[in-house]
């Protein structure tokens, strides 16, 4: 257990002190740090420049200044990010990259250029017709623009070789994370919902090969122990995020084990590899064509709903928790379709509202409790 605790402590250290991570990286390498907004970002390009990409997924903070930029019905991750930026929390960043898959994320980067002019914003618009070759060719030009901007910031050209190497490092990381999610199922006492989230989230604040090494070590350490048995129910999480930790602690208190997820902040980040190919920018673009089951990627047949049903079957889960990010249009439109298909498949579900600025989770505690009781009486 000592080895496991040491690894988790390393992960906790970066998650709790992202500003220090940024300062340390800059001091140690002399290279820059780039903030990556949710949900998708061609991090490999930043990585290939020797810069550190860090994930900016909001956080719990008192919102005051952000409401002079956007109205209160703006997604809470964006409210937090704007607030942090205005407060100076992001001042050590050399740039931020934002993609624009929804109307909110078309607007925020535009506002940013005016109100936070000291941190360069690079806005990418991913194509929705991503199965068409023209869509992929267009996305490659978007990535080329990102590459040019990153090169201008770092002052160095990104070679094709460096980009290919970064793609390999990221694909290895994706595979390792998928392995971890499978192994985690066997250790529900050690890898609680909070720890599972920590392991995944820490990847946003570490150079990816370093994170891969840590997670691989964790897997090795876990496998030294026999599989753990835990009473309780297994759930699949879907949504943008299942934060804050306090919410995941409520799951834990009620014996809910996370056996798989469809969260934008978690598995959607690593379930699709970048395909191999001679042209690394094109490979990066082609990955987007292969993304499935995400509310932000055009899905006219709503495959996402059946993917969640299949995920439940594959993982042996008892139920699904829909973690609905408040004011997130893409997720809110998917919800009725997902519910319809879960009901048709006879899968119990719980809808929780996710709001980073929420003061008290007592309402969620009660709902999780009664849901768990319902599951216990239904399934036995």
């Amino acid at each position, binding site marked *: 257990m000592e080895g496991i605790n040491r690894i988790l402590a390393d992960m906790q250290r970066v998650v709790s002190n992202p500003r220090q991570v940024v300062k340390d990286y800059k001091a140690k390498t002399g290279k820059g740090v780039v903030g990556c907004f949710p949900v998708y970002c061609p991090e490999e390009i930043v990585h290939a420049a020797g810069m550190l990409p860090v994930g900016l997924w909001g956080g719990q903070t008192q919102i005051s200044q952000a409401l002079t930029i956007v109205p209160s019905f703006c997604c809470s991750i964006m409210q937090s990010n704007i607030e942090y930026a205005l407060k100076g929390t992001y001042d050590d960043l050399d740039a931020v990259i934002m993609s624009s898959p929804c109307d909110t994320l078309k607007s925020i980067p535009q*506002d940013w*250029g005016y109100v936070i002019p000291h941190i360069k914003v690079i806005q990418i618009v991913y194509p929705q*017709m991503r199965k068409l070759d*023209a869509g992929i060719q*267009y996305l490659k030009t978007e990535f080329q623009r990102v590459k040019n901007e990153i090169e201008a910031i770092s002052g160095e050209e990104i070679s094709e070789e460096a980009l290919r190497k970064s793609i390999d490092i990221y694909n290895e990381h994706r595979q390792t994370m998928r392995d971890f999610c499978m192994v985690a199922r066997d250790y529900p006492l050690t890898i609680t919902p909070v720890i599972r989230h920590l392991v995944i989230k820490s990847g946003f604040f570490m150079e990816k090969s370093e994170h891969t090494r840590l997670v691989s070590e964790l897997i090795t350490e876990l496998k030294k122990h026999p599989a753990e048995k835990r009473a309780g129910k297994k759930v699949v999480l879907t949504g943008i995020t299942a934060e804050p930790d306090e919410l995941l602690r409520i799951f834990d208190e009620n014996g809910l084990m996370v056996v798989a997820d469809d969260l934008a902040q978690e598995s959607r980040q690593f379930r699709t590899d970048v395909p191999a190919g001679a042209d690394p920018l094109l490979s990066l673009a082609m990955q987007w064509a292969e993304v499935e089951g995400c509310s932000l990627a055009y899905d006219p047949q*709503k495959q996402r709903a059946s993917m969640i049903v299949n995920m439940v079957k594959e993982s042996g889960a008892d139920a699904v928790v829909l973690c609905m990010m408040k004011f997130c*249009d893409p997720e809110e439109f998917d919800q009725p379709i997902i519910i319809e298909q879960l009901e048709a498949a006879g899968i119990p579900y719980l809808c929780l509202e996710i709001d980073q600025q929420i003061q008290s989770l007592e309402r969620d505690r009660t709902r999780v409790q009664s849901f768990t009781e319902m599951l216990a009486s239904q399934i036995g």
Partner: protein
Amino acid sequence: MSDDKLTSKQYLNELMAQHYQEASEGKKRGELVAWSSSIAPQELCETMGIHVLYPENHAAAIGAKGGALPLIDYAESKGYSADLCSYARINLAYKDVQDCVFENMPLPDLLIICNNICNTLIKWYENLSTQLKIPLICIDVPYNVEYEVTQERIDYIKAQLKEAIRQLEEITGKSFDYDRFHSVMETSIQAAKAWEKAMSYAKYKPSPINGFNIYNYMALMVCMRGRPESVKFFNLLADELEELVQTGQSQYPVEEKYRIMWDGIACWPYLGHNFKTFKSYGINMVGSTYPEAWTILYEAGDLDSMARAYSAIVLNLNLKRNIDMRVKIIEECQCDGAIYHLNRSCKLCDFMHYKISEEVYKRTGVPYVFFDGDQTDPRHFAKAQFETRIQALVEMMEKNKAQSR
């Protein structure tokens, strides 16, 4: 609103009734009906002879007739969040209920969207496509990060226009008639020019147009932009407006004391209330982004220019161009004030607008106010707040006038 004597108004009512009737009758005969977003390339379906109906127009009319709430309640009972676009909620409910206070629309055989006005459309129509099990044609027009539409974006859009034609051929089993396409494009351009000309009369001071009538005229641009009837209508309207100018008259029923720019979509359930409030102060809404939104001009037969025109739609432009466009409207229409509708339904109508309003004010010195509302959900609007904000705007406009006297 005012003035029932206008022939253009009678013609408009006739055309709108004809629009819904043709589709209903066509559907009964087994002809194809499409549902489309409001600024999609209608030229494609028009060429193919497919009836096209516009859920946004339909939802707005339901809202204006006070029939939104039962449908909104139904959508929410199906799991749709109250924070989602109310046009979408009304239409997704209508798909099931198929009854409303306005004309009924037949269910579609196919769907066509262009996300040049929002990405909400994509999610909304994905649901229609999934639940009705019908094909969805999507023309994805990437948001313009840059001031101008780049060639990379044009190339991508153009390829999709070709792909949409291929899909339509597959759905209809007919080949696409490029000669007819050319003539539909020509008609559409004529309609856009006629619309632009008629709308330009709002620039006269005093304006011969009652700004709220633009909401009615707009319906025709949404629904029949590719038809010769639209060209005829807007030419007729322009003639009437010219005559009003010549004789010193106006559709606006009282003396025009203040000229304002309205930013955003109308508050359909409260159109009457909003107009009455304006009229009580002599405020005429002479400026809005609507005239430009449907002035879709390109070279007939040139897909590059068509792609560019469909991309450079106000809601798809970057912040700087949004600012410039509003400064131009305020200057050209000689506005004394601006009113920004903080529309709960439309995040693209809101999330850049604090900055837009500040910058526009810096450049024009024209006072502005915001009010909270919604395009069709009546629950997000308060008459008292609207009236107080308008009163505040009038005081600021009056102060400016006094200073310049």
